[in-house]
C-alpha cells in the first residue's frame, strides 16, 4: 500500500470501519511511514474535537414557546376553517360501510357470475388474492354490519356492474387488466382521434392498486374495462397513523426532493399514497361527492413522449367541444424546477369537475 492508498483508508480505519484485510495492509504501511502515522493521529484528533467544534448552542430559549404558539394558532385557524391541521378524515355517511358490506356480500356470493356477466369479451381480469383467510375475516365483519343495517339490496344496486373486492392487513391484491388493443377506453386521451394511445399502454398489465397499509380496508372498482362514470372507487381506512407515505424522489447528487401534488382545493382529502413501480399514486376523495380521484406522478421521459400533453388551451377547447366525449382519465405533463413529470388522473368525477381539478394541480416538495 502506498501513501495515497493509505490516505483513502485512514478515515475508515480511525472509525474502525475498515475491513480486516485492508486494516492489515494499512498497518503494514504505517509501520514504515511516519507521515501516514501522523495523519492517523491528526484524524483521531479531529474525530475527538469535531462534535464539540460543531456544537451550536445559541438557539433562542423561547424557541419552543414560539413553535407551540404557532402550532396552536394554526390549529385554531384550521378549526375555524373546518380544515384540520393533522390528517383530515373525510366525513362519510353512515350507510357507507353498509353499502360496502353489501357489495362484498354480492361479490362473494355471486363472484363467478359477476365475472362472466360484467366484463366484456375484450377484457379479462386476473385477480390474485393472497392471505385469503384475513380477507375472509374482513368480509365476514362487513357482512355482519351489513346485516345489522338491513340495507343490502338498495345500496348494492347503486354500484351497478362494479366488481369489488375487499383488502385487509398484509393482503396484496393486484388487479391486472389485460385489455386487448381493441378494448374500449383503456387509455383514452382528449385528441385520440388523431393520436393512438401510447403503444406501451396496450396489452401492458396495469396495476391498479397495491396496498400495504395494515388495517386498511379498501373497496376498489375493478371494472377496468370502461372506467366509466359508474365506476366508483371508494376508500375507507381505519387508522390514519398507519398511512404509508411515498413520494417521487428526484435524486441528483444532493439535489434530491420529493414531489407531491399541492394546491388542490380543500374539498379534496388525501386518503392514501402508494408506491407503484416508477410512479407514486395519491388517492384523494372529494368530500362532498365521496368520489375518489387517483392521481399518479412519474418522471416524464422521452419514452413516453407520445403521451398527450394537455396545455390549458387544450383543456378549454376540449371542454367546449361536444363532439368527443371527455375522458375519465387525463394525463398532463407538469413542469417543476425545469423537469417534466407525467401526472395521470383517474376519476369518476364529472368531466367538468375533473377539468377544473386538473388546472389546480401543481407539484411541490413534500
Amino acid at each position, binding site marked *: 500500500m502506498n501513501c495515497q492508498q493509505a490516505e483513502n483508508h485512514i478515515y475508515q480505519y480511525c472509525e474502525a470501519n475498515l475491513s480486516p484485510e485492508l486494516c492489515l495492509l494499512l498497518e503494514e504501511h504505517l509501520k514504515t511511514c511516519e507521515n501516514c502515522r501522523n495523519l492517523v493521529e491528526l484524524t483521531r484528533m479531529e474525530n475527538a474535537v469535531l462534535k464539540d467544534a460543531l456544537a451550536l448552542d445559541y438557539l433562542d430559549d423561547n424557541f419552543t414557546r414560539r413553535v407551540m404558539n404557532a402550532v396552536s394558532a394554526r390549529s385554531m385557524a384550521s378549526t375555524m376553517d373546518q380544515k384540520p391541521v393533522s*390528517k383530515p378524515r373525510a366525513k362519510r355517511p353512515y350507510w357507507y360501510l353498509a353499502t360496502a358490506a353489501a357489495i362484498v356480500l354480492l361479490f362473494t356470493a355471486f363472484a363467478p357470475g359477476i365475472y362472466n356477466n360484467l366484463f366484456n369479451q375484450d377484457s379479462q381480469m386476473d385477480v390474485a388474492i393472497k392471505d385469503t383467510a384475513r380477507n375472509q375475516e374482513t368480509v365476514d365483519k362487513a357482512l355482519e354490519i351489513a346485516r345489522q343495517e338491513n340495507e343490502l339490496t338498495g345500496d348494492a344496486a347503486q354500484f351497478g356492474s362494479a366488481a369489488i373486492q375487499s383488502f385487509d392487513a398484509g393482503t396484496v391484491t393486484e388487479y391486472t387488466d389485460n385489455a386487448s388493443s381493441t378494448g374500449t377506453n383503456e387509455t383514452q386521451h382528449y385528441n385520440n382521434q388523431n393520436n393512438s394511445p401510447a403503444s406501451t399502454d396496450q396489452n401492458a398489465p396495469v396495476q391498479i392498486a397495491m396496498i400495504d397499509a395494515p388495517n386498511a380496508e379498501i373497496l376498489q372498482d375493478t371494472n377496468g374495462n370502461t372506467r366509466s362514470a359508474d365506476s366508483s372507487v371508494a376508500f375507507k381506512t381505519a387508522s390514519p397513523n398507519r398511512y404509508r407515505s411515498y413520494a417521487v424522489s428526484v435524486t441528483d447528487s444532493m439535489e434530491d426532493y420529493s414531489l407531491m401534488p399541492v394546491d388542490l382545493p380543500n374539498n379534496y382529502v388525501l386518503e392514501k399514497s402508494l408506491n407503484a413501480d416508477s410512479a407514486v399514486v395519491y388517492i384523494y376523495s372529494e368530500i362532498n361527492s365521496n368520489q375518489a380521484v387517483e392521481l399518479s406522478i412519474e418522471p416524464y421521459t422521452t419514452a413516453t413522449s407520445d403521451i398527450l400533453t394537455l396545455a390549458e388551451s387544450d383543456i378549454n377547447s376540449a371542454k367546449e367541444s361536444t363532439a368527443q366525449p371527455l375522458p375519465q382519465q387525463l394525463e398532463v405533463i407538469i413542469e417543476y424546477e425545469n423537469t417534466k413529470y407525467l401526472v395521470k388522473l383517474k376519476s369518476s368525477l364529472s368531466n367538468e369537475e375533473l377539468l377544473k381539478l386538473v388546472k389546480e394541480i401543481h407539484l411541490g416538495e413534500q
Partner: protein
Amino acid sequence: MMSDEMLASQVLEGDLCAFEELVNKYKKSVFAIIYRIIGQYQEAEDLSQEVFLTVYEKIYQFDVSKKFAPWIHRIAVNTTISALRKKKKVMNLSFDETYIQTLDNSPVNSMGDPHQYYERKELGAFINEVIMDLPESYRVIITLRYQMDYNNGEIAEILGISKENVEVKVHRARKAMRKLYMQKAERKGDTI
C-alpha cells in the same frame, strides 16, 4: 420514558404536550442542520420553526415502525434546500469537484506530528472557523456524520443518496475541511 415514535403517535392523537416534548428534543439538531446549510442565524431559526410546523402537519405521514430522528432531519434538510432554491433561484448544493481539486494541489502527507502544532482546543477552534467556508453540501454531511452521529446508512436515507456515495462524500468533506484549516493555520503562522 416514551420513545420518539410513541410521542409521534400521541401527537397524531392530538396530544400537544407530546409535540412540545419532540420540539424540545429536536430543536437543537434541527437548528444545527439548517444553520450549517444556510449559514445565517435568524433565517435558520425561522426555518427551524417552519420545519416543526411541517412536522406537526405531516405527522400522519410518519411511519411509526421507523425511527423518528431521520424523518425529521430529512424534513429539515429538504426544507432548507427548498428555501435555498427560492433564495438563490439556482440550486447550488452539489458537490463541487473543482473545489476539492483545488484543495488537492498540495500533498496531504507532508506533515509532522500534529501534537507538535495543535492542542485539541486549538484544533477545535480552527475547525469551527473553517466549517462555514466549506460548501453547503459538505457542511451538512459533516454535521450529520459528526454532530448527529448518524451512520452512513442513516445519512443515505436522510439525503436520499447511496450509502457508498455517503462514504465518498464524507471523505471528501473531511479532506476539504482539513485543507482549509491547515491553510488558515499557515496564514496565522502555525505552520505544519
